[in-house]
């Protein structure tokens, strides 16, 4: 029984590929462009383009498509709810009627659009975290936000917090898995009964987890201070980022694609 086996969200898969080697800033900006693109494009006929792009980038990153798709698993429920709401609440030509429920052609289009948009959002963001290590990701973000530091924006601290949080997500999932198993071995019934019973059943998992998390946080803070950490001021880096020609080219291609998509959308509607 492997409870946390299917959590790919935020998981980095190391590989030696063109996409992995790109500068994290390039990948972050490209992802932002893609997310904007997903919102700008409204015409359903253009959506297969996103799918094509997703397949192409996954292949380029040497990550199996099944793994990329799995990163959307945590939001499937949200996507379904969104789709249902739009199907039933959009006004227009009724296609089908049953009691108080009416489905309209506009509703179907709207629901597909919203559901697919959400899915592509998560999938493109998933591609970023699958191909970029948490370290690179926070380095990239820190550098991208560095110009705001003089205005009082804590770019370094936020990046450090993010690195630590991302670093500890897998550890935390492992710990949760371990404690759940330990309590199961003591006969805990974690997946039966109504919601109140289930929440109560989780107390034996949550209490030890909190104890461990606070212990960890405390140890980490001590360890960082003992090694002289005092924030970002005057801190040098081990692996400075290098923006290369291929990063510019990759980013330009993605932006061009998004602009083309948005233009095509204008023209179609």
């Amino acid at each position, binding site marked *: 029984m492997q409870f946390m*086996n299917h959590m790919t969200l935020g998981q980095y*898969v190391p590989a030696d590929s063109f996409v992995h080697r790109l500068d994290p800033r390039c990948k972050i900006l490209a992802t932002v462009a893609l997310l904007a693109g997903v919102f700008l494009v409204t015409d359903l006929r253009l959506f297969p383009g996103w799918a094509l792009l997703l397949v192409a980038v996954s292949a380029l990153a040497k990550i199996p498509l099944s793994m990329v798709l799995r990163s959307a698993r945590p939001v499937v429920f949200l996507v379904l709810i969104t789709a249902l709401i739009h199907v039933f609440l959009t006004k227009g030509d009724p296609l089908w009627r049953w009691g108080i429920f009416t489905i309209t052609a506009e509703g179907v289009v709207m629901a597909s659009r919203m559901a697919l948009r959400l899915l592509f959002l998560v999938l493109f963001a998933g591609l970023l975290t699958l191909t970029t290590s948490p370290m690179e990701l926070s380095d990239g973000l820190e550098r991208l936000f560095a110009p705001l530091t003089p205005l009082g924006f804590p770019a370094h601290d936020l990046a450090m917090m993010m690195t630590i949080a991302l670093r500890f997500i897998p550890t935390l999932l492992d710990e949760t898995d371990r404690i759940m198993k*330990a309590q199961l071995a003591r*006969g805990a019934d974690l997946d039966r009964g109504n919601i109140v019973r289930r929440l109560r059943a989780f107390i034996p998992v949550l*209490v030890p987890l909190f104890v461990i998390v606070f212990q960890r946080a405390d140890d980490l803070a001590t360890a960082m201070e003992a090694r002289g950490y005092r924030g970002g001021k005057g801190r040098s880096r081990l692996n400075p980022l290098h923006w290369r020609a291929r990063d510019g080219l990759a980013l330009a291609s993605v932006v061009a694609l998004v602009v083309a998509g948005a233009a095509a959308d204008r023209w179609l509607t």
Partner: protein
Amino acid sequence: MSLILRNVSHSYHKGTPLETAALRGVSLDVEPGQWVAVVGHTGSGKSTLAQHLNALLLPDAGEITVDGLKAAKGSKDLREIRRRVGLVFQYPEQQLFAESVDEEMAFGPRNWGLPPDQIGPAVDQALALVDLADLPRDRSPFALSGGQKRRLAIASVLSVRPSYLVLDEPTAGLDSRGRRGLMTLIDGLRREGIAVVQVTHDLELALAYCDRICVLERGRALFWGTPQVVVEQLLDRPVQGLSLPEVLAFARDLREKGFNVPLSWDPYEVAHALAKEVG
């Protein structure tokens, strides 16, 4: 009546690029009252094996039966197997959660549906088994010392009277006195008729205390048998990350130099023989 593994294999993250084979065709059996050690280097699959013994993990291939009950996907007996095979994880003190020792101890018996009037005696008995009979029952488990916490956690598994007890690295983080104390405690359990499977990377400890030893290397059960048998095999073929006990290596070297000493890991035995040899 025994716990039997036949050709058990298990991989984590099956079907993904992260797939790791943790067990490859492991076979062993545990008889009532036996003390079995599972020994191996870090990452050799010891903890994975331990979790198979009480059906928390199920094998991808191969067969596991506990007193004739089959541990397989969809089997109705999984819960009963988990009751019969108590599993104590590494650093079990981390699973304590209740407000009092009493509550902590009653968690298991209540989960398994023991009648309320039997919970008290079961808890008393389990606490006595780990030498904690005198502990104030309204104490918070978090206020106990490290060693007491660990023994309380073990007792909380014993409180449902399992026939088998699996301990994953029970001596991790204990000093040599704590280690010896725990070993005496386990020996006492065995006298009560409980079979014990102890996971450890300490070969010397296993040789000194256990009846049977299973040596794992990268998920394979390389050797399996009595300490004497396993030692002979180990002398023939070294195992990755597992060093021979110093006394044993010394005895082997003496024999190569022509001294007639037994291939033993007991310092007294070797010293005696050596004293006789040199007159």
